[in-house]
C-alpha cells in the first residue's frame, strides 16, 4: 500500500514536472508566445462612481455658495440670486438599445457615443466596456451629451441621467469648443480648418461658450466656481490650485501625437491618415481627425488625466469588424482602440502604432487590419485622381472579419434597391457563419449594408500581411470605383450572378462576360495600385513587393485552363499599357498606347463582355492600335 502511495506521489510529481521540462526546448521567446496567442477582448474595468459635479443642481448650489461668499467679502458681482438664471447646457443621456435595429439606428446618428459612463472612474483602460447589467449577450448602454435645446429623435429608449451645466473653468485664453455638434457626413471635426464642412461650422452649437460668457458677465470667477462644485460634490481631489500660475503649469493646452500602423511587409510604421481621435475627462469631450502624416492636435485644457482613443470613422466612412472574441454589439460600432489614460504632461505627446498580430481572432488583429484598410481606401481615391479616373464617393461601410465570412468583396449593397438581392448577398457573405453569431451578424448587416468586405485571416490560419491587405483593398476599391460608373442596375445583376452561381461560375456560364470584364478591372487596380504604393517606399522589401504585384498581372497564361478562373483576363488591361510579351505566354502583346483612364471609360454599363469592351475601347479611342488590340484580346481567348 505504501509503495502504491509513493508511486502515486512520484507520478504526480513527474506529471507536473513534465509540463515544464522539454527534451527539445522551443526557441520561441515569451513575447513571441504571448503575441502569437493574441490578446483578450480588452474590456474596460470601471472603478468608483463619482458624484457628478456638473449637474445643474450642483452648479446652482455652488453658485449660491459663491454668491454668499462674495457678499461677505464685499466683492462686487453683477447679479443677485445668480443661480436662478442658469439653465442647463446639455443633457447627459444614457441610451439603452434593446435590439440590433435600435443599436444601428443609434450609431447612424453620429452622436459622440461612449460605451461607458462619463462620471465613473476607470480602473483598467480597455478598448470596450460591457455593462454586466445587460447580461452576457445583451447590448451595453451608450452615453453621450446632447445640447439642451436639441431634440432626441432617434427611436431608442433612453434616460436623461442629469441635466448638466458645462463651461470653461479655465481663465486663460483657450476657449474650448462645445463638446457636441450635429455632425455632418464627412465633417466629424467642424473646428478643423482644413475640413470642408461649412454647414457644420455654421450650425455649431456653442452652449459651453455661451455659459462661460454668462458667468463672466455675472462677475463669477470660473475657477472658484469649479472648485466649489468639486467640493460640494465630494470630489475634493479634483480641486484646482487657485493660483493661476500653478494651475497653468499643471494643465495642458493641447493634446497631440501621431498615430501610425505597422506595415509588417516592409517593417515600416506608416501614418494613419484621417482617423478620428477622441479625448475625454469627465464631460470634456473632444475630437479631431489625424492629418496626412498621422498627426493630431486638439486645443483643450485637461488639468488631470484624460483618456485618448482612436476610432475608424470620419463620420461618413466607417470600418466595422466581425470577430470571434467580441460581444455581438461590438459588430455595429466602428472599430476602435483606447490608447490609454494619460497625465497632463503625457497628453502633449500621445502617439501610438498599431502592431501586427498573427492571431486573426484577436482584438489587436482587427484594429491593425482596420488601420491598413482605412489608409488603402483613402489612397485608392487619391490614386484614381492621379490617373484621371473619376471617382468621388467616399462614404463607405466597410466590414472586416477574421475567418468567419466569405472572401473579400465589394457588394456595394447600399447602392442596390432589390431587397431580395440584398438579402441573398448577405447570406452569401455570411455563408458558413452558423449559430447565434450568424443570426446577429445578419441583423446588424441588414441595417449597415456593406459596400466592401475583407476577410483578413489567411487560408493558412494567420492574419494576412500588410501587402496582402493592401492589394485586396485596392482591388475592392477598383470595384467600388466601377460601381459609380455603371450604376445600380448593372451592379444588381452582378451580385445576382455571383449569388446564384456561388461565385464566378465558369466561362460558359450565361452572364460570365460581366464577371470577366469587372473582375479583370479589380485585379488590375489591385496589382497596379499595390505596385505603385510599394514603389513609393524606400528599400528592398518595398521593391520586392512592387515587383511581385506587377509581375503577377503579367504572369497569366490564358491557355492554362488548369488555373481556376483562368478565363478572367486579369492581365489584359495591364497589357494594354505595357510593352511586348515573349511568345511563351501565347499572347501577342504589341499594345502600349492605352492608359488606365481610357480603359476605365470603356467599362460602362453597356459593356457586358470582353468583346464589347474591345469594341467600346477602339470606338472611344479612334481605333488606336486597332490590329494589335484585336490580337491581344484574342490571346486572352476572346
Amino acid at each position, binding site marked *: 500500500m505504501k509503495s502504491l*502511495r509513493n508511486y502515486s506521489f512520484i507520478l504526480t510529481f513527474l506529471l507536473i514536472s513534465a509540463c515544464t521540462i522539454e527534451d527539445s*526546448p522551443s526557441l520561441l521567446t515569451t513575447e513571441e508566445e504571448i503575441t502569437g496567442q493574441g490578446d483578450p477582448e480588452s474590456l474596460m474595468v470601471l472603478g468608483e462612481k463619482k458624484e457628478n459635479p456638473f449637474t445643474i443642481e450642483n452648479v446652482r448650489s455652488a453658485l449660491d455658495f459663491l454668491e454668499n461668499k462674495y457678499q461677505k467679502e464685499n466683492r462686487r458681482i453683477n447679479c443677485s440670486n445668480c443661480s436662478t438664471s442658469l439653465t442647463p447646457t446639455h443633457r447627459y443621456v444614457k441610451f439603452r438599445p434593446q435590439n440590433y435595429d435600435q443599436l444601428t439606428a443609434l450609431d447612424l446618428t453620429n452622436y459622440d457615443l461612449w460605451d461607458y459612463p462619463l462620471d465613473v472612474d476607470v480602473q483598467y483602460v480597455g478598448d470596450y466596456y460591457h455593462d454586466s447589467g445587460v447580461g452576457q449577450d445583451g447590448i451595453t448602454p451608450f452615453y453621450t451629451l446632447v445640447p439642451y435645446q436639441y431634440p432626441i429623435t432617434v427611436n431608442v429608449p433612453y434616460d436623461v441621467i442629469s441635466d448638466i451645466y458645462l463651461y470653461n473653468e479655465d481663465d486663460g485664453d483657450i476657449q474650448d469648443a462645445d463638446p457636441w455638434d450635429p455632425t455632418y457626413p464627412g465633417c466629424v471635426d467642424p473646428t478643423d480648418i482644413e475640413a470642408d464642412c461649412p454647414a457644420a461650422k455654421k450650425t455649431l452649437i456653442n452652449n459651453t461658450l455661451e455659459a462661460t460668457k454668462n458667468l463672466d458677465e455675472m462677475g463669477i470667477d470660473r475657477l472658484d466656481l469649479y472648485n466649489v462644485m468639486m467640493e460640494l460634490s465630494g470630489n475634493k481631489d479634483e480641486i484646482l490650485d487657485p493660483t493661476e500660475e500653478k494651475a497653468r503649469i499643471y494643465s495642458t493646452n493641447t493634446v497631440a501625437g501621431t498615430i501610425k500602423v505597422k506595415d*509588417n511587409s516592409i517593417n515600416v510604421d506608416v501614418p494613419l491618415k484621417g482617423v478620428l481621435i477622441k479625448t475625454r475627462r469627465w464631460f470634456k469631450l473632444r475630437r479631431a481627425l489625424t492629418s496626412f502624416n498621422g498627426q493630431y492636435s486638439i486645443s483643450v485644457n485637461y488639468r488631470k488625466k484624460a483618456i485618448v482613443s482612436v476610432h475608424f470613422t470620419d463620420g461618413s466612412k466607417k470600418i466595422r469588424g466581425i470577430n470571434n472574441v467580441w460581444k455581438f454589439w461590438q459588430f455595429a460600432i466602428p472599430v476602435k482602440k483606447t490608447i490609454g489614460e494619460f497625465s497632463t504632461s503625457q497628453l502633449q505627446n500621445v502617439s501610438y502604432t498599431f502592431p501586427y498580430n498573427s492571431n486573426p481572432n484577436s482584438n489587436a488583429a482587427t484594429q491593425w487590419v482596420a488601420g491598413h484598410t482605412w489608409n488603402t481606401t483613402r489612397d485608392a481615391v487619391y490614386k484614381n485622381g492621379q490617373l484621371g479616373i473619376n471617382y468621388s464617393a467616399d462614404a463607405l461601410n466597410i466590414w472586416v472579419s477574421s475567418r468567419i465570412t466569405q472572401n473579400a468583396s465589394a457588394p456595394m449593397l447600399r447602392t442596390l434597391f432589390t431587397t431580395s438581392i440584398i438579402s441573398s448577398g448577405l447570406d452569401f457573405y455570411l455563408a458558413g457563419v452558423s449559430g447565434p453569431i450568424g443570426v446577429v451578424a445578419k441583423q446588424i448587416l441588414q441595417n449597415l449594408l456593406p459596400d466592401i468586405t475583407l476577410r483578413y485571416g489567411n487560408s493558412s490560419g494567420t492574419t494576412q500581411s500588410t501587402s496582402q491587405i493592401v492589394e485586396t483593398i485596392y482591388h475592392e476599391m477598383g470595384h467600388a470605383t466601377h460601381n459609380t460608373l455603371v450604376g445600380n442596375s448593372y451592379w444588381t445583376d452582378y451580385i445576382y450572378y455571383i449569388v446564384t452561381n456561388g461565385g464566378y461560375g465558369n466561362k460558359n456560364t450565361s452572364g460570365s462576360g460581366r464577371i470577366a470584364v469587372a473582375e479583370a478591372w479589380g485585379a488590375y487596380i489591385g496589382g497596379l495600385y499595390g505596385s505603385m504604393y510599394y514603389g513609393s517606399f*524606400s528599400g528592398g522589401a518595398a521593391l520586392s513587393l512592387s515587383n511581385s504585384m506587377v*509581375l503577377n498581372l503579367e504572369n497569366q497564361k490564358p491557355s492554362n485552363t488548369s488555373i481556376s478562373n483562368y478565363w478572367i483576363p486579369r492581365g489584359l488591361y495591364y497589357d494594354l499599357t505595357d510593352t511586348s510579351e515573349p511568345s511563351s505566354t501565347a499572347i501577342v502583346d504589341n499594345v502600349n498606347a492605352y492608359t488606365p483612364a481610357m480603359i476605365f471609360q470603356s467599362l460602362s454599363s453597356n459593356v457586358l463582355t470582353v468583346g464589347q469592351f474591345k469594341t467600346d475601347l477602339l470606338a472611344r479611342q479612334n481605333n488606336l492600335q486597332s490590329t494589335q488590340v484585336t490580337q491581344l484580346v484574342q490571346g486572352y481567348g476572346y
Partner: protein
Amino acid sequence: MATNKNKIRAGLITQLLFPLILASFSCTHNETLYLSKEFSLPIEITPTKEDYKVGDTLKIDILFPKIIFDRGNNVQYLFENYDFDAFLGIRELKDKSKTLVDQPGANDKFKIINKIGEISPFSQSGNKIFLSFNGTEYKLSSNIILLEPGIYNFIFSTGLSLSNAELINPPSGYEKIIAGVGPTYFIVNRGIDININLLTNNTTTTFDLPDSIDWAKPVFSFQVIE
C-alpha cells in the same frame, strides 16, 4: 471490513487518478499558437563587379536547406517541397524620372541557360523561378549571358501569400501551432556587392533605410559595356 477495504481501494484509486486528472488539465493551454515569421533566402550572383562586357556570363545560384532559421534566428521552420512562388524581374535602367518597377523590361537583352531549376520568362521583364528540391535542399543554378550594352537590374521576389510550414521544436502545451510564413525576401550576395548606386543613380528608387529596418536586399544592378 468489506466497507473498509472498499474505502481503502477507493482512496488508492483516487490517489492514482488524481495525477492523471491533474495532467489532463495542467499541460494544455487549450489554445492555438499563431506564428508569422520572416525569412530571408540567399542568392549568389558571380562574378561580383559593377561592369561587365557583352558576352560575359553572370552565374545565379540559390542554395538553402529545407530547415532554416527565421530572420531573427529564433526558430527553425521545415519547408518540405515548398512553393516560394518566386519571380525575377529584369529591367533596363533608362529613365531617371521613374521607379525601378516602371523601367522597361529587358529579358530580350539576355540569354538564360538553366542548369538546375529554371528561370522561365513570361513577359518583357518577368521570369518565374522554379527552384529544384532534392529532398533536403532547394537549388537553382543558371547562367545568364549578357547580349547588349546598358545598365540593368535584377530583382527577386517571393509570392505575397505563402502557405504554412512546420515549426521545428514547437513549445509544448498548445493544442495547435500554426507556423505562418510572413514576409520573406531574397538577399543577394549577403546584401553586399549589389551595386545599389547604379539603381539609385538611374531611377527614382531610394535605398536610405537602415539595414535593421530594411533587411531585404533582393536586387543586383550592373552595367554592360561593349
